[in-house]
Structure formats: structure tokens, C-alpha cells
């Protein structure tokens, strides 16, 4: 059985599908979106997270450290912090153990028409683990949230083994996509095509970032691309959040970008574009 790496199991995820749900966050993502608010999800390796805000500077963590120049997330510092301010983000786990953990609350999830949502990071980056999880999580309702950046044959298998998909479509222009996310959108659109003509219910999520993808041209092209998708339930616009950089410092990283949040009118105009193509559109 393949082992995967996850960084969080979040109970009562209210935005990730129908009913009461548990979301599992896979660790590791091939994209580097400049508006990413979840830097824990980028690296596929365990990392040290330290709450500098409450640190009293006792240096117990530094004294115990045997790998000061090349952290291997061994956890020595975690165990000596007198205030429990350090933790490891990234837990290796196999599908059976993960399923067992999630199913502890199967009664709650099933009674309320909910289930589990696998998100990340990028779930497609851990294909074998993902497929095993989808299999072992049955009979729960299973959803995934993905950037769509993955091998089309894997994507097809995932589609056939899941009940619901949230797919991000950030922008239609390949060059711009590469510039803002670090990767081309070719695979993403191919997988989106599979969804459009497949049998799996899906929702398209668009993070709406001023000056990046909020132009009429991009939104119109996205709407045109999606208009004949038979199982598309709706498009959900996620306006850029000014708190996107909140978690970088915890990982000793710096958030280097700055974007504007679209205004209400802009959001409304974007919504109208999708509705004009017969696509239901929600604003998160």
C-alpha cells in the first residue's frame, strides 16, 4: 500500500461540498500560484512550523538541533519547546489508516448527506495514494478539490472513482498561466475537457485576482469553454483574500506578492458574464 503525505485533517469543512464534511489536505503542489494562501501545501516534504509570535527566545530548540543548516523535520525541537510552539506539518500515512481516521465520524458524515473532501496541495501529485484513498473511503461520499494539473489518464481514473470534483480554472491564456502559477494550463484544460464530457458532477472554482484574471476576455473565454459542460453544477468565484500571506512566516518564508481584491461591482459583472452563458455562478 502506498504511503502519502498530508498536512491537515479538518473536521467540519463548510465550503468543500454537500453536508457535513471532513477535508483532508494533501501535501505537495506542482503549481506556485502567486496568490497561494496555503504555503504548507507546497512542499511534498514534512516541514517545521514555528509560532514566532509567542516565542520567548529560550533557544531550547536551537540547542537540541542536530541539523541547523538542513532541517529534516526530525522533530527534536518540537519536543523540547516549553510552550509547544513548534509542530511538524506533514504526516506520512497510508490510505487504510487515513480512511479509518476519517470514518471515526462516518455516522455524522453520512447522516447529514456529507462525506470527505480530499484537497491540498494538489491531490493528483500523489496519484496512487489518492486512488487508494478514494477506494478505501467508500461508502462515504467522496469529493476532491484539484488544480487539474495531473496526468490525463490518472485524472480519468480519479473521475471514475469519485462522487464530486472541485476544479480550479485560473485562466485560459497559457502564457499568463505559466507566468502566474509556474506551469502551463495545457494539462488542466485537457482534464477539464474530460470533466465536461464525463459523468462526474463538478464545480469550477476561479480565484479572482485583480490584474491577473479578472478581465472580461479571460472570464468570457472561461465561460465559453464551460458552456456545454453537462455536469457542471456552478462556477464559484473566490475573490482574492488580503490575508493570503498569513501563514508564510510560520514556515520561515516571506510572502512577496501583493494583489488587490476585486470590488463588489466587479464580482457582480463577472457573475453576469457566466450567467449570460447559462452557467450558474456563485460568489464565495
Amino acid at each position, binding site marked *: 500500500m502506498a504511503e502519502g503525505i498530508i498536512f491537515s485533517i479538518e473536521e467540519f469543512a*463548510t465550503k468543500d461540498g454537500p453536508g457535513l464534511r471532513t477535508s483532508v489536505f494533501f501535501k505537495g503542489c506542482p503549481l506556485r500560484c502567486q496568490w497561494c*494562501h496555503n504555503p504548507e501545501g507546497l512542499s511534498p516534504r514534512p516541514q517545521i512550523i514555528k509560532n514566532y509570535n509567542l516565542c520567548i527566545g529560550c533557544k531550547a530548540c536551537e540547542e537540541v538541533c542536530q541539523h541547523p543548516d538542513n532541517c529534516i523535520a526530525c522533530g527534536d525541537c518540537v519536543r523540547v519547546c516549553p510552550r509547544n510552539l513548534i509542530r511538524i506539518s506533514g504526516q506520512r500515512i497510508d490510505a487504510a489508516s487515513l480512511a479509518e481516521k476519517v470514518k471515526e465520524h462516518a455516522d455524522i458524515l453520512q447522516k447529514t448527506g456529507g462525506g470527505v473532501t480530499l484537497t491540498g496541495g494538489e491531490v493528483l501529485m500523489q496519484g496512487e495514494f489518492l486512488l487508494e484513498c478514494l477506494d478505501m473511503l467508500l461508502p462515504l461520499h467522496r469529493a476532491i478539490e484539484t488544480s487539474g494539473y495531473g496526468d490525463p489518464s490518472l485524472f480519468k481514473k480519479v473521475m471514475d472513482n469519485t462522487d464530486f470534483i472541485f476544479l480550479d480554472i485560473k485562466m485560459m491564456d497559457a502564457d499568463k498561466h505559466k507566468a502566474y502559477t509556474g506551469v502551463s494550463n495545457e494539462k488542466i484544460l485537457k482534464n477539464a475537457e474530460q470533466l465536461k464530457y464525463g459523468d462526474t458532477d463538478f464545480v469550477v472554482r476561479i480565484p479572482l485576482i485583480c490584474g491577473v484574471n479578472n478581465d472580461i476576455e479571460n472570464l468570457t473565454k472561461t465561460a465559453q469553454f464551460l458552456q456545454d459542460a453537462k455536469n457542471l453544477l456552478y462556477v464559484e468565484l473566490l475573490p482574492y483574500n488580503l490575508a493570503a500571506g498569513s*501563514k508564510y512566516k510560520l514556515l520561515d518564508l516571506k510572502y512577496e506578492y501583493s494583489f488587490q481584491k476585486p470590488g463588489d461591482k466587479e464580482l457582480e459583472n463577472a457573475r453576469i458574464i457566466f450567467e449570460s452563458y447559462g452557467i450558474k455562478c456563485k460568489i464565495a
Partner: protein
Amino acid sequence: MNSAIERLLDYVKSQKHRIHRRELTKEESKKYASEFQIKGMPLIERFTRRFELFMAAEKPVILPYTRIHGLRTIIEFPDIYCPGELEEIRKTHYIHEDGKVCHLAYDYKRVIHNGLASERNKAKSNLEGANEKEREFLLCVIRCIDAIEGFAKRYADELRRLGRSDEADRLFDELVYGAKTLIGAMQSFRILHFAIWVSGNYNAVIGRIDQDFYPYYLAEKAKGVSDEEIQNLVEDFLLSFNLDNDLYYSLAWGDNGQSVTLGGCTETGACAVNELTTICLEASLNIRLIDPKINLRVSSSTPLELYELGTKLTRTGLGFPQYMNDDIIIKGLERLGYETEDARNYVAGACWEPIIPAVGFDIPNIDGIPMALIVKETITNHLEQCKSMDELLQVFSKRLKIYINENAENHRNLYMEPSPISSLLMSNCIENRKDISEGTKYNNYGYHGTGFSNAVDQLAAVEAYVFGDGSISANELIAAMEDNYAKTPEMKYKLSVEAPKIGRDKKTKGIGDKILNEFAKALQGMKNERGGIYRPGTGSAMYHVWHIEGLGATADGRDADTPLAANFSPSLGIKGSGPFSVIDGFSLPSLWLTPNGGPLTLELHDTVFDSEDAITKIALLVQTFIEKGGHQLQLNAVNGEQLIDAQAHPEQYQDLIVRVWGWSGYFVELDKEYQDQIIQRTSYGI
């Protein structure tokens, strides 16, 4: 909300009504005190004289925009005791809190319906054949009735002076001869409630207004009055509880016992949810003020819509409604000897304690039993000798029983000041010619079981590491606690982070249930000196703070400075849990054995409440907790104000999760600039 209520709300919030208040001058105070602070004068006489004088000194004020009248104008009035007198009494008596009658759910319904004249007649007719003490009591009740009537008459006169004769007649006549209209009933309630606070009795519980006012509601509907008009009236009524609440005696701001209980079942067990239940919830949602506190009685048959309405109220960030599970509480009260009809009529007391309106004078907070300390002492003194977990638990049970027996001795010879006004408003005191301070149908004491989670977590850690994998020896554990884990940070980490915790790890539920059981068992069969029994509960009130003193570090990795968990909630700072694990961990099968109550508290950031879909999901979460057998739930939407506090005191908010966009995180871990942004986004006025 109509424009008059909007204006009234602004008026009350801007505290303009307070210009009508005054302090008594020293001379006035002295003069008044000279009439009742008299050694040798019976206390009931002093109480009554003080009440008469205070009510007579109150000046009638008709505020703009409101139709429910009654405003406190005198800030403070002298007490009935001579200097040092109460301290003398304390030498030979146990005085609970201030020694005054408090924490009652009154029989407002009866007095409002019958009218004061009828109650006076009843008192008069009971004079015949009464002995001297009974006669004194009944005469004091009559004098209290006269004082209230005099007060009402001056309000009626003032209304007439303003050309509002109809209102004047209604105010006076319905109070004296019995309420005929909904507005009259509410007006009478206001005056009676006002009188209780003037008397010095406190924590005056409001009770089941959706039931008590329902006949008047139906009469209004029959006259063609719309629900909208009725809701405006209810809003006016609810607002009245905020006029004087800053003057009320309370241990903490807002802790004044003005609790409303809605929904639930009738005395026959039928569903009691009615149109007024919804109207009251919506009215509270509209006015968004801290009084009255709303409690919602629910059960496994409560429809989701009621939870959704409750969730909308939670979203306002006021910390209510508190949910009370009838399935658990009624069964628990019956086990303790409450008659079924009474148990079905329970209301939330000042905080969460189920009390019985009209016929109950329980003291539900007689004391707190420090569960975490008793477990710690069990470990410190006996773990080395115990060969198994079962043996350790048996020792714990014995120590718990010893502690309770000793503690109960502290409350012997209870002193309670008489109160003819509270006697008027409780059932059967007039008929029995006995002051309420001497007791009534139910005279039980309630014990808070505090530090529950820390108690469970200590035992779970011992089970896992001392009796389980053997990775920690009894000696090592005891030494580490003594040293406050200063030399053993790795053990502290293991115990505080990795060890099983209630509200996160299912395997701790057995221990949690065992503790509840043992608590109930320890109190079984005990009688208090007032003829009542003892009720075990899961609340902490302020005891979780007081019980830290001298506790030191505990075996769950908690160091001496970390607070204990409040009420029936997970230990502070546990990570890796979530709402499902918490509601599962705290819906223990033995909760019905501990019906003195004490809620599970769940905090969700108010951004979680951002859509209709989210409201439904939160409602589903609450419904699930109730269906799983949870007894009480306080669900809080954490708002901007609390986040500011969290920024200033992060150590108290280590488990506060904020959810923004797709992620969630611990608020205290975020960069200050982002914390500021979140605070700005979530601060909305109340």
C-alpha cells in the same frame, strides 16, 4: 422591527435613559437606613420596610418610544443589615453568596393572570388561624403587594398627566385585577421583575415566556393582531431587560440570571414550540443585546429549522442561544426525584442549571468539586501502589467520595434572608404561610464538577503510558509534576500533545463516562439539611479559575500556570481536534446522571456563518450533537472583540481557529498584520 423600536434601541444603547438616575444623598441614605437597620427588628420586617421605602422613592419615568414602562431611578439603596451584622451571622452560619434569596424562576404567570388584588385576598384569607410567625409573614406579603400597587399607581398617574389615560388604566387595572391583553401581561411582568431587583433578590430568571404569554398571544390573534405587531411588542419587552441591568448585582458583567428559556415540551410531554417561540428568537435576533440570554430547549425530534434560527442568533456573537437537551435533562431530573410534570417544565437558571419554575428553590451552585485535583492526588499518592487502571479508578472513587463528604460539611446551618416578595411570586408560599427562604417543594443543592477534561486526560495519560506501553514510570511522572515539568520538556510534550485527550481521541470516552458515573454515585443518597438531595453537574462557573490555586502541574502535561478547561469542554490548547471529535467525545452516555448541567462550549469564527448554506451546516452540527446525546451546548461565533482580546492574551486563545477563504489556522499564530486584517474584517457593532 418598527421605527419606534429602532429609536428605542438607539436610545437604550446610547444610555440616554440613565439621565433619570440619581444617587441618594448621604442624609437620605441615613434617614432611610434608620427605618430598617435596627438591631432587634425581625429581618422580615426590615426587608419589607426597606422594600416599601425603595419602591415609594422610585420616581415614575415614561421613556419615549416604549410601551413597557418601569425604570430604575435610584442607583443604590441601603441594605437591611447594621454594620458588621452579617459578619456576625457568618460566624455561626454558612452564607451562600450574599445570603439573599436568588436564582429563582418565578411564578410570574400566576400573579400576572390573577392580579395583585387576588393575591392580596388570598394572603388575607390565610391570616385566619395563622400563628404569630405566619401572621407576620402574610402581613409582610400584603405590604409588599401594597408597595407594588402604589408604585404602579404613580406610573398610571404619570401616564394620565401625559394624556395617555388608556395606557394608565391598562397598566394599573391589569396588574391589580389580572392581565387581559398581551401588552398588559408584559407590563405586569416588567413591574414584578422590577420589584424583585429592588428588593435585593437577584439572578431573577425570566423563564418560559413563549409558554407563559401564549394564551395572551392567542387572544391577540383572535382580535386580528398581526405577528409583526406582536413581534414589535416582544422586542419592546425584551429591550426592557437592558434598562437597569448595569445596576443589578452580579458576579460578572452580564451574569445576572435574566435567562429566557424557549421551546421544549409541555407538562404532558407534547412539543411546546409555538409561534411565540419563533417570534421571541427573531426579536432577540433583531435587538442584539446581551439581555435576556436565550436558552433553547431541544430534543431528538426538534426540526432543523429551529436550529437554523438558533444559529442565526449565534451568528450575532452574543454567545446564545444555549441549547438544552430535553431527552437527557428531563430523564436526569426525574432520576433525582423531580416529578415528571415539573421536570418537563424546567428552565435554565442564571447560567445553565435546570431549575423548576414556581416550585423549586435549588441552590445549583453550592460548591465546586475539583476533579482535576482529586485525580492528581490519586496519582500522586496511590499510583505507585496500584497494579492496574481499574485499581487506580477505584482509589479515585474513594477519594472523590471522601472529598465530597468533607465538603458537604461546609454548608451546614445555611443562612437565608427572608423575602416576602419572592414568596409572593413562588407557588404555595402564601397557602403554606411560609417564607420562601425556608424552602419549598425542591430544595436541592448542585455541585459543579470542575476540571473535568483535565481529570479525564490525566487518567488517559496514565492508562496509555504507565499501565500501557510502560514508557513513563509512576515515579517519573510524579517527580515531573512536582518539578512542573521544568527538567522534562519531552515528557511534557508527550503528555500534553501526544497523549490521548477527551474531545479528540475516542478511547478516552470510557474514562470520561466513568468519572460522570462515579460523581453521580458519590452523591447518591446524600441529603442536605433542607431536605433536598445533591445534583451532580458538569459546569465550572468560576471554579476552574479558583481551583488552579495550589493545584500545580497535572499528569496530562498541563503546567501549573495553564488554566483548566471551563465547563464541559476540551483541555486548553489541544491540537488536531475538530468539531466532530469534540461533539462525539462529549456526548457521553452517562450525562443524564449529571443534570445539574454545564455546557460543552464550541467556538467557531464568525466567518464560518457567512452563508445560508453554512447556517444550515452549523444547525446540522448542533442537531447531531443533540441526537448523539449531548446535554447542553454553547456555540459561540467569535467576533472581532474577542479576536482583539486574543491578540492581547494569546496564551488564552491557543486553540482559537479562524477560517478565511479556503484555509483555517490558529489565530494566535498569524502575523500581527494579518491578525489586524481579520479583526477589521470581523468587527461589527453589537
